Structure formats: C-alpha cells, structure tokens
C-alpha cells in the first residue's frame, strides 16, 4: 500500500444513523486513501451497508461528517455523491428490471444527441465495449435485465460503477452472485482500479478474498466499529475473531 499524502481521500467521521430506535450505525469512523482497498467486515446486520449508504447519498446520517480530500462535504442525495465521483455497487444491485443493460448503465446520465433525444445506439455501443472487458460472454443487450441471470445482473451493476471514471468506488458484496471465473475477473478489475489510484470500500464476507484484495479491514459489530487493522499484519483467524467476538486483537493496529 502506497500512501503519497497524509490526507485521506475519504474520511467518514463519527457517523451515526438509527431507524426507529435501532442504532444501525453508531459513532463509526473509517477512512480510505487513494490507491487503497479497505474491507468492511461484520456479521449480517452489523451496519455495513447502512454506513456506505451514508457516503453514496442514499441515507443522510443523523450525526457525523464526511470529508473528501480533507474538505468537508454535504451529501444529501445520490446526485451529490456522483458529483464527488463516488460510484456505488449496491448489495441489491439497484437495477430497473424493465430496462435493458444499456439503459441501466446510463440511468440518470443518459447520452443525448444534438436534438436532445436519447442516443440509444451510442449507449448500446458503449455498453458493449465495457461489458466486453468485464464479462466477455455477455450477449443479452436487447432484453430487460429481468431476463438476466443473477451474475449477469451483477456484472451490469459493476459496469455501471466502473464506466464513469470514479475516484471513490463502493462495492457492497460485488461477487455474491458471480461464478469463479467472473469473480476472478472482478478481483483483477479491483487490482487494476487500485493501480489507477482509486479508493475502494469493499464489503465482502469471504475472508480469503479480503486477505487477497484488501489493504486494511474495518470490522463492525452491532452498528459499532470494532477496529481497523492492516491486513498484512494479521491472520485470517484474528480477523474472524474480531468479527465473531467483537474484540480488537492486539496486533496490527
């Protein structure tokens, strides 16, 4: 991991949000440097998705601030997040099932021609290009995404996040539905994006993937941050221990 500066690309400071009395995220602070992959780990319901939704603009935190390149920013909605070059792959994929791959990829940012009308052909061509990189077996460009398999849908969601030159990428279990070959391609993609200097938050349950892909890991339990460790300095078992016991090990702080 290379840190060229000491200012993190993203800092989420002291974030809290609750839903009807349940503290889904409770005073959590995490940060992310350029060219770094930070894993967010924790049991089901720990608050990982809720935390990153405060960064992607889906939720507004009750408490806490977000800093990007050291500047305090207000992210009130997904448009604000996109304006900060934050792209998100949601756990639910957030695809409109009745639209095709190209329409989903460009949703909210459609290409238009000189007459101000949608440039469908151009959008399809761009979609074919990016899908050729991500999932060369993908052929179903002219059907609604409801007709795609789980993995194909996931690759559409990944393509959408990658296409728009993000600076900050949030991936909420991006490989949950993928086969081994496609998972490998996503792993290579993450390495490549990291080299290009993106910062990536990766929510991932598979501990082997975490050890392989992440530079640091932040562990959450019941909405609270258990701790953040350098992945090089801890073993699988120590991280698993943090997830299950909710206690920080002594090493690798």
């Amino acid at each position: 991991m290379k840190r060229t500066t000491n200012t993190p690309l993203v800092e989420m400071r002291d974030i809290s949000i609750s839903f009807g009395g349940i503290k889904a995220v409770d005073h959590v602070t995490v940060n992310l440097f350029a060219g770094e992959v930070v894993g967010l780990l924790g049991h089901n319901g720990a608050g990982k998705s809720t935390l990153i939704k405060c960064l992607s603009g889906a939720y507004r935190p009750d408490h806490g601030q977000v800093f990007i390149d050291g500047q305090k920013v207000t992210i009130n909605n997904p448009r604000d997040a996109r304006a900060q070059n934050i792209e998100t792959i949601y756990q639910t994929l957030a695809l409109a099932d009745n639209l095709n791959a190209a329409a989903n990829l460009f949703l909210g940012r459609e290409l238009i021609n000189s007459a101000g009308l949608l440039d469908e052909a151009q959008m399809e061509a761009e979609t074919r290009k990016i899908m050729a990189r991500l999932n060369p077996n993908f052929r179903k460009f002219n059907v609604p995404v409801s007709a795609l398999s789980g993995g194909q849908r996931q690759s559409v969601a990944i393509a959408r996040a990658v296409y728009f030159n993000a600076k900050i990428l949030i991936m909420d279990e991006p490989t949950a539905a993928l086969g081994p070959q496609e998972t490998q391609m996503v792993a290579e993609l993450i390495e490549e994006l990291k080299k290009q200097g993106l910062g990536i938050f990766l929510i991932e349950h598979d501990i082997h993937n975490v050890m392989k892909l992440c530079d640091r890991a932040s562990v959450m339990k019941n909405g609270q941050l258990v701790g953040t460790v350098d992945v090089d300095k801890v073993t699988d078992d120590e991280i698993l221990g943090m997830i299950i016991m909710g206690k920080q090990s002594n090493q690798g702080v």
Partner: protein
Amino acid sequence: MTQDPFTDSNSSKKPQSKISPLTSFLRVTEIDTRLAGMAGALLLIWLGFHYYGLFVNGMGAFLTPRNLWNLSVQTSSIGIMATGMVLVIVTRNIDLSVGALVGVTAMMMGILQVEVLPQYLGLGHPAIWVITVIVGLIAGAIIGALHGWLIAYCRIPAFIVTLGGLLIWRGMAFISAGGKTISPVDQTFALLGGGPYGAIGAWGSWVVGLIACAGVLWMMQSGRAQRVKHDFPLRPMWAEVLLAAIGCGTIIGSVLLVNAYPLPKGIIKAMAAANNTIVPPEGIFISHGFAIPVLILISVGVLMTILLTRTRFGRYVFAIGGNPEAASLAGINTRWMTLKIFSLMGMLAGLAGAVASARLNSATNALGLLDELYVIAAAVIGGTSLAGGVGTIYGAILGALVMQSLQTGMVLIGFDTAIQQIVVGIVLVLAVYLDNLYRSKSK
C-alpha cells in the same frame, strides 16, 4: 438463414430447429407482436359488428366511411387522455380524476369564451379560441400539479388524492355555472370538435398523409443508418420494404377512407350560399377528410411517444415504474417526476375537455362523466401494466379505439345500455387476462 436479433452475429450458430415460420418471420421483421395482436383484434371486432348487422338487421353499417369517420372523432378525447394515463400507470399510480377534470376545465373554458372574453374582445374575435384553449390547458396542468404534489410530497396515495379530486372537481364544475349548460361555444373553438366544418378536406388530408408517409420512411432510414454506424445486426431488405409498405399502406388507406365520406347536402348548400354560388342539381361530392380532433389526437400521440421513448423524462418514467428505489439511487428526483407526470395528465385532460365541449358545442357539468374508467381501460387494454414499468402510447390509443368501437358497434346493432356495460366489462377483464398470458409466454 434467419438471424436472432438477441445474439451477436458471429456467436450462436446452433440450429434453430424448434422455431415456427411465423415466429421467425416476426423476429426477422421485428414486428411488435402485441401491436399485431391488437390490430387483429380490432379488425375482428369491426368485421364482427359489420356482419352481425348485415345478417341480423339486414344492413352492415359498421364498415362504412361515415361510421369509421365518426368512430375516429369519438375516440379522440379518450385517446388523448389515455396517452397521459400510460405515464401515470407506468409509474405505479392511478388517476381517477380525469373525467372530472374534463368537466371542470370545459366549464371554465365555456364560461371564459361565452361570458367573459366576448365582453372585452367582441363576439367571434379570432383570439378567443386561442386564449380559451391556453387557459384550459394551464388550468388542467395546475390542478394535476396539485394532485401530484399531494401524492409525491405529502405522501397521500394517488388513489385517494384523485378519488377526492373526482368528487371535488365534479362539484366545482357544477357550482361554477350553477348547473347551467353553457352554449354555444365560439365558432372557431367548435372546429376542435370536428363536425363538417372541423375537418381538413380531401387535399389537406392528402398533404397530411404524404407527410406522414415521408415521416415513416425517414424514421426507418435513420434507424437503419444508426445500426450500420454501430455495426448492429440489420433487418433484411425485404423486411424493411414490407414494413414500409404496411406503414404507408395504412396511412394512405385512412386518407382514402376519410375522403370517401362526403359532406351532407345541407352543409354544401349552406357553403354555396355563403360563397354566392349554386349547387348543380346532381350535387357535388366534397370530402370531409381528417377531422381536426383526430389530427390533435395523432399529434399528441406522436409527441407523447417521442417523450416516452426518446427523452430522459420518458426513460425516468420507466425506471421509476421498474424500480423506484433504483431510480432514486441513480439520482432521479422521483417526487418531482411524479408531480410533473400528474401535471401533464391534467393538461391532457384540459385538452380533452376542449375537444369534448367543442364537439358538443356546449359545456355541461356532466361532460366527461365516467371518462376515467374508459381512459384507464384503454391504457390497460393497450398493454399498460398496472404493476408498473410497462406500457406504450400507441397501445393506449389502440385501446381507446377498441373501447370506442365496442361502444359504437353495440349502439349500431341496437344493444341497449345495460348490455353495452356488461360487454365492455367482460372485454376489459378478458383483455387483461390475455395480456398476462402473452407476457408469461414471451418471457
């Protein structure tokens, strides 16, 4: 060899053994099977009424230029509103207030052009109809926006807001004129409703028809050019020619049809008298041509189709219908969209109010009564899914034509109102059932 449009040209070379010739024909030509099905159903209904009349009553009155011309005029106001209802239903909402909006906007326009404007401009001033229509459209848009605001920002379900609206605006229509009928409307305004004077004649119809044909050809040509540019699979040339022939054939056929319906003798006499000429004893054949309300419907249909399929606005309508959460995560302001959609629906109801009151040559507080049901039925018969996310403008217009054909047909063959209602009810339920079957098959 046929080519599956869903796969790349160089990919699957597997034998397509189980595909019937019809299926592969439809695939190659990319004919919308739903469109073909609806056109077929419509034709069956028309033939059914015509031959029922012929055999049972001894006279087939349905497939005559006169009846079909009237049918086109009667379809206009429901058709105009059905195009807006598609957007409402696609975004998982409903609007029960459109009939009442027709009533209240027509009443406003009636009072404005009969009691208010002539005082300032003088009776028959050429600006009266323009001001009246603009005010009607704006009034509809404002009322619709109010509904949309209550639905999107106050989170009251659309069903409740527009059910309330139905009662409120119908009541307002009554109060505004104390229950009186306002008539006659401004002479130019009346042309919006059709009638012998509100049609564009033979030459006008040919011009419109030829422009429409040119439009069809241009669209097909530019679509093909786009595919060539991006290396997408092309339709074979024979399929392109066939489609162009069907499109232009339908257009020219309808021009011939409306031109085959002559103006009544009385009107011709009156026209001749106005021009100081005399009608020769054998009479003159002057065609109606397309009625103005039909041209309004067609223009609305074209504009709404462009809006729904070729603009960002339309794309967001479908996205909200398919997955509202995904739409808002993609940065779409779904509440603002809802407000705009209801406002557009209100504006179209205002336009329908203008057409309907012009046709009656008066504004009554019962105008548009039960229209909401016919409009919703038209959209649904036309393939708009009440679950949201699916619908087409042309489908809704065809749906309106189906509804109106049933209505007119049953009147022609002498069914009474009770039977008419029963038949329309059955057709509505059956159409949705068939549509479900079609959808599950095509998956």
